[in-house]
């Protein structure tokens, strides 16, 4: 009975928490002053890349609760409206769980393209939501730039996460 109540992550031991820890580290990395100022835009959305990667490879280890907590911390630490990143990461999980059957086992290039399309939709949504909260249409250029950087960063970050996955699981 108790075992049935335990989260799936716990049944894998420490390895079960690797995705969550990796995503948490990515959240912290997004706050580092790598160049400062410009880095606000030039910093890829490492948390989104990491959550998508783990959901595509080990969805059971990245439950809704974990996505919500990561989103909450991102909102709190990046000082963006609360709920924004929570919604984005939860939608990412919803999307992956519904579409994974179509691209599971396909090449990395396919994963990359799917990530690009998904993140474009999420960035558009975040632009609309943030404009709604601020009560003014924000210039879309910085967001478009960050989307491009995030998409191009998917391959190297995915490579690092892949090495971590092979080493830990």
């Amino acid at each position, binding site marked *: 009975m108790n075992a049935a109540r335990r989260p799936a992550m716990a049944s894998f031991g420490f390895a079960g928490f690797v995705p969550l820890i990796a995503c948490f580290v990515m959240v912290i990395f997004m706050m580092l002053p790598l160049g*400062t100022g410009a880095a606000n835009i030039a910093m890829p959305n490492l948390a989104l890349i990491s959550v998508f990667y783990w959901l595509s490879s080990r969805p059971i280890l990245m439950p809704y609760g974990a996505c919500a907590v990561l989103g909450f911390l991102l909102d709190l630490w990046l*000082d963006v409206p*609360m709920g924004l990143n929570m*919604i984005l990461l939860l939608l990412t999980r919803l999307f992956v769980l519904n579409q994974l059957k179509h691209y599971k086992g396909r090449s990395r290039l396919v994963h990359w393209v799917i990530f690009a399309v998904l993140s474009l939709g999420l960035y558009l949504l975040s632009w609309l939501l943030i404009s709604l*909260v601020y009560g003014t249409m924000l210039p879309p250029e910085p967001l478009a730039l*960050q989307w491009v950087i995030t998409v191009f960063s998917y391959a190297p970050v995915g490579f690092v996460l892949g090495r971590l996955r092979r080493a830990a699981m």
Partner: protein
Amino acid sequence: MLVAIALLAFEWIGSGVPHQIRAYANDFVAPVLRVLEQPIRAVQAGLERIAGVSDIYLENETLRDENDRLRQWREAAMQLSRENERLRGMLKVPGREVPPAATTRVIGVGGGAFERSVLIGAGSSDDVKRGSPVVDETGVVGRVIQVGRWTSRVLLLTDINSRVPVRLERTGDLAIAEGQNESLLRLRFLPQGVQVKVGDRLLTSGHGGAFPPDLPVARVVDVVDDFILLEPLGLLGKLDYVRVMAYQPVPEEVIQPEAPAGGEE
């Protein structure tokens, strides 16, 4: 998902998470950021050193010349300062010097593509207060918007919510330097007919009481009709150490008599 939508709705109606909770949340992550930034700073410093080795001789020559010039300026400045002090004393005008509350390092960035803010390693334990102006060695950087115990968040001049009352140094005309969430600021509400030139400097006017007067803010880089773009003088692209000024915002009605309308200074 419902919780997330509810939180966003609260932000929309303006009753989101209080600033203080966000500020204390930053205190929790600050020690991790401090540890992680060490190797990054070391790598950045190493790369800058490697890049600088090739022109070190030329730079040395330039610095010697500059040093000679600065010595002369220093003498002149000290003489003027003494004279200024004496005159202020005679006229009973209070001094304008603002002491620093804290000098600290930028330990984190925030906002993603939506906001231009940085996290600094000084908080209420260092006498940092909400609204305090923040400067670096070249100009105004922004102002403190959240104060935790050991960290504070600084809203940069480039943020879309940033508005700084400024004065055109050459003519004394008043205007507002507005952030656009991009690297350049926009100059707005300048009186009609004022001729602005590329290269003109803008200083804080002191109006509104948020910033002390005469701090360097930005330089004009582009003028197309009424669309005037400014480049911040503070090195917002590579902030390292910043100074939080121990300046208490003053109500406007107290400042108004001291700062007459533009063009008279």
